[in-house]
């Protein structure tokens, strides 16, 4: 019970701060929309239909938005001296990790849920993924991918903020670590967006969900175990 309460307190602090400033969600959402404008130039989308590339484009925008947000989440802690406070408090280090990670997961998911309808409106001719049998898989894919991104991103961001290069480090270190998430994420979202009924593609979606689940569990556990060494001072 006690660890859960500690987790909730740290998480609540992040949520309250975000509710007051709306800094992360607003800037992440703006970034996603600006990226979409570039998609329009890149594909000369006068027909407004980028369905075949939908999955890849969606995750291109999301992954960089995620880095943008996760970098901020630790810059605050560091610059305002909150990290020292957290480290001094009698809280297990892995609880700090889980709390920060859940916070990032919530903000990222919120931005994505706002951005997907906008993306659909701009580039997708018919929203197949809204069909009931597809919507569940689409959202599950989104959730599992976000979990992996938040798990690894929070870990790398903690390191990055304590180095000289700071926010430069998260994308170049985080992106190769997250490639095993991006590939299945694109596969799932792309297939659901295009409404493909090809048996082979649906099989690959199943495999992708399994890969994501395995990645999430293994990376979450391993990082929670070694997080102590990252924060330790």
């Amino acid at each position, binding site marked *: 019970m006690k660890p859960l309460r500690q987790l909730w307190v740290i998480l609540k602090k992040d949520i309250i701060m975000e509710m007051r400033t709306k800094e992360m969600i607003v800037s992440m959402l703006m970034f996603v929309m600006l990226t979409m404008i570039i998609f329009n130039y890149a594909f000369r989308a006068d027909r407004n239909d980028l369905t075949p590339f939908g999955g890849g484009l969606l995750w291109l925008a999301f992954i960089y938005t995620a880095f943008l947000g996760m970098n901020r989440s630790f810059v605050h802690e560091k610059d305002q001296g909150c990290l020292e406070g957290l480290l001094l408090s009698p809280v297990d280090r892995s609880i700090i990790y889980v709390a920060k990670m859940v916070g990032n997961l919530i903000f990222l998911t919120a931005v994505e849920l706002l951005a997907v309808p906008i993306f659909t409106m701009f580039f997708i001719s018919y929203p197949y993924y809204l069909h009931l049998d597809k919507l569940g898989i689409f959202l599950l894919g989104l959730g599992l991918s976000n979990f992996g991104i938040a798990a690894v991103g929070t870990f790398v961001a903690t390191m990055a903020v304590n180095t*000289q290069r700071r926010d430069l480090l998260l994308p170049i270190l985080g992106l190769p670590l997250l490639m095993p998430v991006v590939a299945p994420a694109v596969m799932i979202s792309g297939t659901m967006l295009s409404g493909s009924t090809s048996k082979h593609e649906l099989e690959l979606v199943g495999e992708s969900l399994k890969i994501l689940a395995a990645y999430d569990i293994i990376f979450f556990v391993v990082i929670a175990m070694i997080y102590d*060494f990252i924060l330790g001072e």
Partner: protein
Amino acid sequence: MSLRISALYGLVALAAGLTMFGLYGTFYWTPLEVNEIGFTQKIFYFHVPMAITSGMAFGVTMVASILFLITKNLKWDAWAVVGAELGLIFGSALLWMGIIWQRSTWGVWWTWDPRLTSFLVVMLLYGAYFVLRSSVETPVQRARYSASIGIVGYLAVLFTMLSTRILRSVHPVLFRLSDSGLGDSSMLITFLVAMFAMFALLAAMLILKTSVENLGEELDYLKSEIGG
């Protein structure tokens, strides 16, 4: 001390000898591949051993990273760095050989074959490992950070290989040992010699480079002792 050094000389000589024999076997002893690949098939004799060696070097990084986090001994940090360095060296040689091979076999410089794709990700990941190292100043913190990336990175490597292979299964796997036509015994012997040559080279370079790293650390310590 002297025994250690002579053993090291022996290892270097072994690596050099085996490499020379491997090269001789590659160019003069083994027959030309009669199927469509032809002369460029000979890249195979060093290409595959180098791939395995570079994977082993990254494995050294992972094991040394775990040992560092357990023991907190900076000696293991040196092993981890040297492993990553050698993995990158063998890896870039491997990539260039692969590019030459593809260009002459398929007529393109690059294909998004699962192995190529995952190997490129791996190279960029270990490149970022060195960017991370260069952006942390205190040695202990640097060692802790890079050790955790050494562990998590190796897991990511395994996952990248797994996911690119599963998700691209529409395409055939392009190189397989059984397809390489190692029918002739000279081919098999050359391949195995090249393999042991690369292993010996890796071992020799690991030992040499780690002692250089350790000396460098000792030097830094001595310098700080005299206030330099």
